[in-house]
Structure formats: structure tokens, C-alpha cells
């Protein structure tokens, strides 16, 4: 602050006794101001003209990078759906997944709560195995059901679906084969207990 003059302006009688010095602007302050102004112009030019940036472009770049790094989610899901099977191991593993993630809304014993029960015949979003897998994977955000596809692995989704389907079958007496479907949509039932295809 060597440039300080500390010369009083003599305004004090016009400002309730408060006088002011006629000191110059600090150099570093002026420098900082100019730097931010030039930076603002430079950034604007870079973002919109030279670099041709945009939110949309950033999103697509991030998505491309993610696709390259991780196998495409859709393919993984398709592959997993083909692997779906109700086996004793899957049901046991599915119970663990259920207890960790689902009980808050669907109840300790699938009796429901915030979310619907799985112990009756009513399926709000389709009662076929493929519907149930879709509901778990994509969720029903409007009703608070989280899309678990980004959270659970495809294998875990298969397991928890196997658990829910098995418990539902036990509770309602609906044959497993009915739930697993038939024809093109049919999901193989390794136990072989599903006899007749039901339309």
C-alpha cells in the first residue's frame, strides 16, 4: 500500500463527521477485477464457440464413456432375464436381497406396508414372471417403487424375483408354472412341476 496518499478529502462536515481518504485502488484488487472480467469473456468464448460445449453434449459424452467402461445395461439385463430360474439357491439368495432392500416397504413377511403385499392374487403391474422382473428393474417411480436396475445386479434381481414368486405361490396356492408363463414368454421351470401351459 505504498501508493497510499492518506490525503483527506475534507467531506467530513457533509457526512456526519466521517472523512474519507483519497487513496488509490489497490493494484492487486484492480488486477483481480480485470482477471475475472477477461476470464469471463474467455470462458464464454471457449464454452460456446471454440469448445462448442453444452449440457446435452456433456451428458452424451459421459454416457458414451460409461458404455465403453461398463457393458451396456440393456444387454446385461437381457442376458440375465434368459438366466432366470427358480432354484433353491436363487430363492435362498433372494431372501437375503429382499430382507436387505425390500422389507421397508413390502414388509418383513411380504405382507406389505408402504408398498403392496405379495401374499395375494393381485398383481398391480402384471403377475407374470417377466412382468415382475420388469417392475423390479424399472420400478414404478410415480408410486415410489425405486428402479432397482441401477442398484441391484441382474443376478440379484433374478434372485429376489424367484423368492417373491415362490412365496406368492406358497401363500396363494397358485401353481408356479402359472406365474412363470408359457409359450414364448415362458420362463423355464427347472423343477419340472409346471405341467400345463396356461393361457
Amino acid at each position: 500500500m505504498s501508493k497510499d496518499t492518506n490525503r483527506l478529502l475534507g467531506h467530513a462536515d457533509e457526512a456526519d463527521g466521517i472523512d474519507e481518504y483519497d487513496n488509490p485502488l489497490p493494484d492487486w484488487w484492480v488486477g483481480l477485477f480485470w482477471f475475472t472480467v477477461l476470464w469471463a469473456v474467455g470462458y464464454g468464448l471457449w464454452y460456446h464457440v471454440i469448445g462448442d460445449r453444452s449440457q446435452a453434449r456433456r451428458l452424451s459424452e459421459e454416457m458414451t464413456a460409461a458404455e465403453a467402461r461398463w457393458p451396456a445395461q440393456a444387454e446385461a439385463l437381457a442376458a440375465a432375464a434368459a438366466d432366470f430360474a427358480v432354484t433353491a439357491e436363487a430363492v435362498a439368495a433372494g431372501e437375503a436381497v429382499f430382507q436387505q432392500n425390500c422389507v421397508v416397504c413390502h414388509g418383513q413377511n411380504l405382507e406389505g406396508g408402504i408398498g403392496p403385499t405379495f401374499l395375494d392374487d393381485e398383481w398391480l403391474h402384471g403377475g407374470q414372471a417377466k412382468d415382475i422382473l420388469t417392475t423390479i428393474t424399472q420400478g414404478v417411480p410415480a408410486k415410489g417403487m425405486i428402479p432397482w436396475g441401477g442398484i441391484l445386479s441382474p443376478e440379484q434381481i433374478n434372485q429376489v424375483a424367484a423368492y417373491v414368486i415362490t412365496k406368492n405361490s406358497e401363500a396363494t396356492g397358485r401353481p408356479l408354472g402359472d406365474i412363470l408363463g408359457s409359450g414364448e414368454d415362458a420362463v423355464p421351470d427347472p423343477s419340472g412341476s409346471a405341467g400345463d401351459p396356461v393361457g
Partner: protein
Amino acid sequence: MEKTTTGTVAAGTDVGYDLDIVKMFFTATVVWALVGMLVGVIIALQLAWWPANLGLPWTTFGRLRPLHTNAVIFAFGGNVVFTGIYHSTQRLLRTRMFSDTLSRVHFWGWQSIIVLAAVTLPLGMTQSKEYAELIWPIDVLITVVWVVFGVNFFGTLARRKVQHLYVAIWFYMSFVITIAVLHIVNSLAVPATWFRSYPVYSGLTDALVQWWYGHNAVGFFLTTPFLGLMYYYLPRAAERPVYSYRLSIIHFWALVFLYIWAGPHHLLYSALPDWAQTLGMVFSVMLIAPSWGGMLNGLLTLRGAWDRVRTDPILKFMVVAVSFYGMSTFEGPMMSIRAVNGLAHYTNWVIGHVHSGALGWVGMISFGMLYWMVQNIWKRPLAHPTWASHHFWLATIGIVLYTVSMWAAGLMEGLQWRALNDAGQLANPIFVDITARLNPFLWIRLLGGAMYLTGAVMMAVNFWQTIRGPERPAAEPVPVAAD
């Protein structure tokens, strides 16, 4: 008579100032400070410990939070600014206020707005615009009262007995004019019933107008008038001339010109067009130097008075206030940079930032002014000089606990929300898990806020006993409470 020394000439002669209105606003300030801060502590408790919501609709966080923000900004902040303006404007312009009647209409009008807000917000009546929640009939009342204030203020200006307009007056003018424009434009709505209305803007336009208003409420309600208060009360308390007249001119005009464009930084990564987002971001960054101009002029005015800063609680409050002003006006522009905003937005970091400005700058400069004023207006020494120092330390440590805990909480949230695991899935898929992890920080924040409130309660008791105490002998020199 107030008197000044060192580098200043004797203050203007007593022209019969209206000090009663100053005392009225002063009293309202202290009352609303306690109310607003108490509600703040209550909602901080609710966030840390949910049963404090009491299970009643009227007492839930969602309704008490706007009550807190309205109470501290418009009730405490508004009244403290009016206290300072009604006092310093008369003295700086060496004339009584334009109209005693308008002064009182302004006072009682403003207090009734606050009471109406305190009734309607807990009842759930809201326009759902942040910092502009009040329903349309109250908005109309605000407009009327503001016009009354504006006529009274500019009427006083027209009757001034001085030629030179001191820098504090410029800041007050920017406050009166800009708040009128912001309030009216943002609140334009078509009434449907007495309690409900529909905004004239929709969708993105509504969001942009709202944040043009919201950000400039910070700029022109919590910044420019308080800079005006700093420019009057800091040199008065320090008894030193202002460091640089030139700096005050340049930073004033730069500040008011640049501030008004910065609002879109609240809408980064939204449907707002990219060019408008860039505009909000770069204008925010360009605000660093103009803001720091105010800080510099405050701190450098204290050259030659630093020995007193160690012992005088009034100057301590002011130094910490100006320092927090400098810190939060650097933090704000940093947070408005796209990459930083992507991490910080919607986290508790924003809450920490707001409170470093609100508790640190607005609160501390107000306390400094109020401690100076109670001794000068009522002409009495402080009843408990040491309490002022205790208040200072409670408030300062409280702010540090508040901001540091919120920085930590905000960074944790921001990083955990976006973290991915090796499979490219969310590492913390259950949102509420992250929320639960915030709890220790929320308790620390509550502690910081409670300390700040405790200091304010001590101040109120101190003022009460000071005002009821014996008048200071006329010969005794003005303020400076001992430590």
C-alpha cells in the same frame, strides 16, 4: 451529543432528529432476532431429531422453515436495516426524516406484515416461491409499505442540508429501488381466492424470475444495505476516516451492475438454456473483486485502530463480519462454477454457505451496530460490557461449528450421491442411507446455532438492562466497552 475524533471533524449540529422511530425499529430488531433465530434452532433440531416435528402439520419442518427464513431475513434483517437507515440517514443528510407519520406507517406496516407471515406460513398458506412465500394480499401490503418507505426516504433526501451524498446513502438508495422492482416483478400473480393466486409466469420463465429475485434478495436486501451500515457505523465506531473514497465508488457501481445478472447460477444443469447458465456463472465470478472492495474498505479503515480491535467488542464484531463477507463472497462465485456446482448443489454445503453470509456477515455487522447504537442513542454505558465479549465468542465459535459441519455434510452428500461401484452402479443406491449418515453433522450444526442464539439472548438482556439503567453523564466519552 455524539462526538467524533481522529481524522474527522465534529459532527453536525443537532437538528431535532427523530430518534424515537430509531428506538422503535431497534426494539423490533432485537425481538425478531430472537424469534427468527429460535425458529432456526427448532428446525435444526427437527432435522437432527425428527420427533421434534411434533406430528402436527403446523409445526413440521416444511412450514417452519419458510417461517425461519422470512423471520431472519425480513423481520430481523429488515428491521435492523431500517434502524440503521433511519438513524444514519438523518445524521448524514443533517435533516429530520421527511415525515414522522410515514415513518410510523412504515414501522407498524412492516411489523404487521411480519405478524401476518408468522400466522399464514404455519397454516400452510404459501406461494411456494423461496423467500417470496407470502400470499398475494400480504404481497400487496408489502408493496404499499415499501412505497411509503421509499417516499419517506427520498423525501428526506430531497430535504437534505448537505450537498455531498455519503457512500452509505448510495447503498441505501440501491436497496430501496431494487427491492421494490424485485418484489413487484417476482410477485406478479392473478388472485383466485383471498388465499390463493397463480403466478403470471410459468415453467422455466417462473424459475428464472424467481432466482433473479432470490439471488438479488441476497444482493440487495442482505448485502447492499448492510454495506451501507458498515460504511457509516464502522468508521464511527473506529473513529477513523474511510480508507478510499475512490474504491467505494468503483466497488459500489461494479457491485450493483454485476449482481443483478448472477441469478441464473441457481439454475445450473437445469432446463435453462446453456447461454443463460453461462451468464449467471461468469457474472458471479466477476463479483469477487467488487465484493472484496467493500471488505477492503472496511478492513483498511481500521488501520491505526487495530489495538482497539483486540479489546473493543463492537470492532471485533465488525472485523469478523467483514471477514465473513469476504469469505462468503469468494465461496459463492466458486460454487457457481459449473463443475463445483454439480457437486455442491442441493447439498448442505449450500446451507453452510448461506449461513456463513447470514450469521457471519449480516448478523455480526448488525450486532456491532446495535451495541454501538444502544450506547449512543440511549446515551448509557452497557450494563454488562463483558457480556458483549462473551456474545462475540459464542457467535464466532457457533458460526465456525455451523459452517464447518455443513461443509463436511455437503461434501459427503455430494460425493456419495454420485459415487459408482466397480460395476458402474450407484455405490450408495439407497438415498435415505446417505441422509442417515448426515446425522452427526446435523447435531453439530444444532449446537453451533444454539450457541449463536444464546449470544443473541445475552445481547437482548444486556440491552434491556442498559436501557433501563442510569443515563451516562454528559461529559463521559462515547462507547467502547471494556473487555
